[in-house]
């Protein structure tokens, strides 16, 4: 019996004008998406491989351990996902420059210090110079969140209220068929009708994209695509459920349509951005960039004065029995030779760097890097916390849930950026570890990392330097998407049972 209902629903819908229009609009958008992707993706992949080879070459050209410690690994590049056409993820707003070559050098009588590299994270704000009118990218996220919610409503607003008005609902229920079965039949029938044009458009899209050599989809990618289709189907299901719910509760299809469209506008179009902005209102404010600079500079100044004090203490300890300047002048008047010798002794004491001074200098350099990285990290963490909280709040809208889920699945967007940052942190640890261990292997070295005089000068194999390679692991993306998937299933359940309850209690 249920198959009868589903079949009837399907035939009804497929012959309708709305079905045809759905096919047209979905296919047009999906083809556009594929073409735009092909145009941009080639450059993206090429750029990435060029950047990676360049930084590998510079890394290999560094034959001295000190240069390696001073200049670091160079910028660490983020691998572009081959599924960017699914979710753009606002990648333009995520910074790509996270490495900073040291920029200061300090000197005093007889000493000179140069900074090492550090992680700076940077920021990206392409809007600041973009004169073009603002628009949203047409990716799968756009197509799914807007159209796969709008179209189900157009198919369901009259599903129950229209039949009730015409009286066919009464007729249908006069047969030996239970209401739940009828509702399930309608639900599945509509969902399948919506998904047919969608899957068709998706296939068109994939056909265009796989014709291109620059986008190679691996087996894992196809697995992810399958999950993405599942997400899309459950999202469409939520709105089919919502449509049936409102349709079951109203007598007139006109009223149910208006109610549905207004709910749609509020949840899909306005809620993600309004809630995103609203949530920042209750957040602990991030430091302003000026405050951040001020507090970091204060800490840096602290280690600087600390260094100077300790250096002076060492020097003074080394030169305890030297005459002071006025005595020296007096000596000069009596015997210039002796005075000159004294002055020379004095000068060498200040200008030769013993082990103690070098250790102090190495400490200055490493503490500088440590403080900079700590402050940058804290600032970044505060910013990330703000975004995370805003994302939690926007999850009230199913459109935002789907957006985040698709971004995770496609390997783009904010979560992917966080994974990339984690990889960067792991790698930098490994990189620094490598320098320390290579240095330790050399017995002639002073083992003072970060300064030229303190490090091993033995050649080492450039192959042994750890290399950074960004990967998009399926397990990572799946883990971050699990929460969103669960939320979607939950919403699907809520709306479907809502429709069920209202329909069972309603009069025909």
């Amino acid at each position, binding site marked *: 019996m249920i198959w009868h209902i589903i079949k009837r629903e399907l035939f009804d819908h497929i012959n*309708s*004008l*709305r079905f045809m*229009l*759905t096919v047209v*609009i979905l296919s047009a*958008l999906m083809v*556009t998406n594929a073409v*735009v992707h092909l145009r941009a993706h080639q450059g993206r992949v090429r750029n990435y491989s060029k950047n990676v080879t360049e930084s590998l070459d510079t890394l290999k050209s560094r034959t001295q351990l000190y240069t390696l410690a001073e200049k670091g690994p160079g910028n660490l590049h983020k691998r572009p996902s081959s599924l960017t056409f699914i979710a753009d993820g606002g990648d333009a*707003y*995520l*910074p790509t420059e996270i490495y900073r070559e040291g920029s200061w050098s300090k000197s005093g009588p007889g000493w000179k210090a140069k900074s090492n590299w550090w992680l700076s994270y940077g*920021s*990206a*704000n392409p*809007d*600041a*110079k*973009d*004169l*073009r*009118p*603002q*628009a*949203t*990218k*047409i990716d799968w996220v*756009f197509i799914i969140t*807007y159209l796969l919610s*709008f179209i189900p409503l*157009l198919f369901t607003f009259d599903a129950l209220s229209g039949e009730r008005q015409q009286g066919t609902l009464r007729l249908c229920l006069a047969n030996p068929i239970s209401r739940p079965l009828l509702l399930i039949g309608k639900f599945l029938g509509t969902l399948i009708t919506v998904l047919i044009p969608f899957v068709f458009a998706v296939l068109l899209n994939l056909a265009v994209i796989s014709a291109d050599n620059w986008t190679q989809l691996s087996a894992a990618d196809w697995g992810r695509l399958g999950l993405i289709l599942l997400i899309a189907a459950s999202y469409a299901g939520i709105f089919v459920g919502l449509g049936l719910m409102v349709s079951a509760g109203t007598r*007139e299809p*006109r*009223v149910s*349509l*208006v*109610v549905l*469209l*207004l709910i749609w*506008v*509020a949840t899909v179009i*306005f809620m*993600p*951005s*309004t809630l995103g*902005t*609203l949530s*920042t*209102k209750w957040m602990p*404010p*991030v430091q*302003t*960039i000026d405050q951040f600079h001020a507090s970091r500079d204060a800490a840096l100044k602290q280690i600087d004065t600390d260094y100077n004090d300790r250096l002076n203490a060492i020097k003074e300890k080394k030169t305890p029995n030297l005459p002071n300047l006025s005595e020296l002048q007096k000596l000069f008047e009596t015997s210039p030779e002796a005075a000159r010798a004294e002055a020379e002794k004095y000068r060498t004491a200040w200008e030769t760097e013993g082990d103690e001074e070098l250790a102090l200098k190495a400490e200055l350099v490493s503490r500088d890097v440590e403080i900079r990285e700590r402050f940058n990290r804290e600032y970044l963490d505060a*910013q*990330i916390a*703000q*975004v995370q909280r*805003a994302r939690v709040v*926007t999850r009230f809208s199913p459109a935002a849930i789907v957006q985040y889920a698709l971004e995770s699945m496609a390997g783009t967007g*904010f979560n992917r950026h966080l994974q990339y940052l984690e990889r960067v942190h792991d790698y930098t640890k490994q990189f620094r570890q490598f320098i320390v261990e290579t240095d330790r292997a050399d017995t002639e070295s002073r083992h003072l990392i970060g300064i030229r005089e303190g490090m091993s000068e033995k050649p080492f194999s450039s192959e042994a330097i750890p290399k950074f390679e960004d990967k998009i692991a399926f397990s990572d993306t799946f883990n971050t998407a699990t929460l969103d998937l669960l939320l979607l299933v939950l919403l699907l359940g809520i709306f479907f049972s809502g429709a069920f309850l209202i329909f069972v209690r309603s009069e025909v």
Partner: protein
Amino acid sequence: MLRNLIRQELLSHLMSARFFAAVIITLLLVVANAVVLLEDYERRLMKYSQQENVHRQKAQEAKTYSMLNLSVERPPNPLSLFSAGLDKRLGSTFDIYYGRVPMISDGSARSLDNTFLNLFSKIDLVLIFQVVLSLMALLFAYDAIAGDWESGTLRLVISHPVRRGSILFAKYIGAMACLLLPVLMSLLMVMILLSSTGSIQLDGEDFLRIGGIILTTTIYLSAFYLIGLLISTTTRRTATSLMLCMFLWVALVLVYPNWSRFAITPVGNTRAIRSSADQQIQQIWEEVDREERLFLANSPLEGEPRKFNLDVQQSNSFSSAGHLSRRYGMDMKLGNQSDRLVPHVENYHATMGALYIRSAEQIALVRKQTLDSTSLRESIWYERLMKLSPASLYTFATAAWAGTDLEGMFDFVQAAQGYRRTVIDYFHDKDAFGSRQWFASDKGPVDWWDLPQFRFDRTDAWENATRALPELFLLLLINLVLFTVTFLIFTKIEV
């Protein structure tokens, strides 16, 4: 008779559930968003005054003329609440320096604390009208004729001695009145909110601009109502008419503006233009270098430029040489031995000042041409393409009224450029370039008490009106065409 028809239309709409729902949802959205936007505006205003203070302090800190570090900040536009436009996006801090003419792309967004938050899209009040009320207009219109035709009431009405034009007109007036009601009600709510917080100061001109926005909204909604009416008259079946209306709405409001921006690249590759501009700028610098060498060859100054063979006892200096501008500043303490050279050094800086000003103006010319033929041309083309949809026409027209459009941004850049000239004039008045205080403060630091202050006033409402006029005109034209076509079809159909 016409009045009766209008009254009947109006009543039937006002009593309907869809009108009630439209009012509720518009009010809810407007109030919720207005609260958020107001908060956002207040934060930006606070940030603006903070930045202003920082700029003022920095300017006062300079001890010599060459160390002057001036910046100006674009104030947030109070009407960005209605139409955000480019106001929140473009960089708002511009450096004012005699050796560089500020251009629109030079603004930096230093006041942003968390750029990641740009991941969330921005909204404004106009967007609510654009999306919600255009949808409502179509929902009012799709069964206006088709519904009456299906139920037979159309035949009944026409059997009375009433012209068909009057029927159409009555329907139009009735629906438009119902559509404008939520607009006016929500604006009233916004005004109440604004007056209760007091952080936004609106003047008479602003009310004129808001009036312009309301007018544009009316014309925009009327265009959508007429689209629906036309579809309703031609299809004569509510089910068909509804589906056509809905999909057309999706295409015009949701899809097309975004689609045209990404599917089409209106301006080809601009790399050649940019690289030739770079070369021209390079030549300008070479010219500057040549003249500097020429000057130094005829002068007793020797050694590294700017420090020369002076007897410098203490100095504090910076210098940067970028592609677009070169900048240096210094504050030296000179020994007595350099007294002989000081007039020559003064001469040198006067020459360099004049050279930098000249090169800045030449470079600005090149940059303006490049901008006009690359990114500006591109954005204008995108705007043109997008204007094929009435929804985008509406966006651009309201941005023009609010002053948050491209022109409004250029107004500020122009003011900044004017301020740069004022500062140069001030320098000339003080004979700053050729004075000892240009490079040394040992005879006393510069007193900045009469340094001209920057002021920026938005254009008057009349100017905004002329900027919004092309879009308004196009919207009106769409209205006129749609109404005529609908009228012609309606008079011809059989009932």
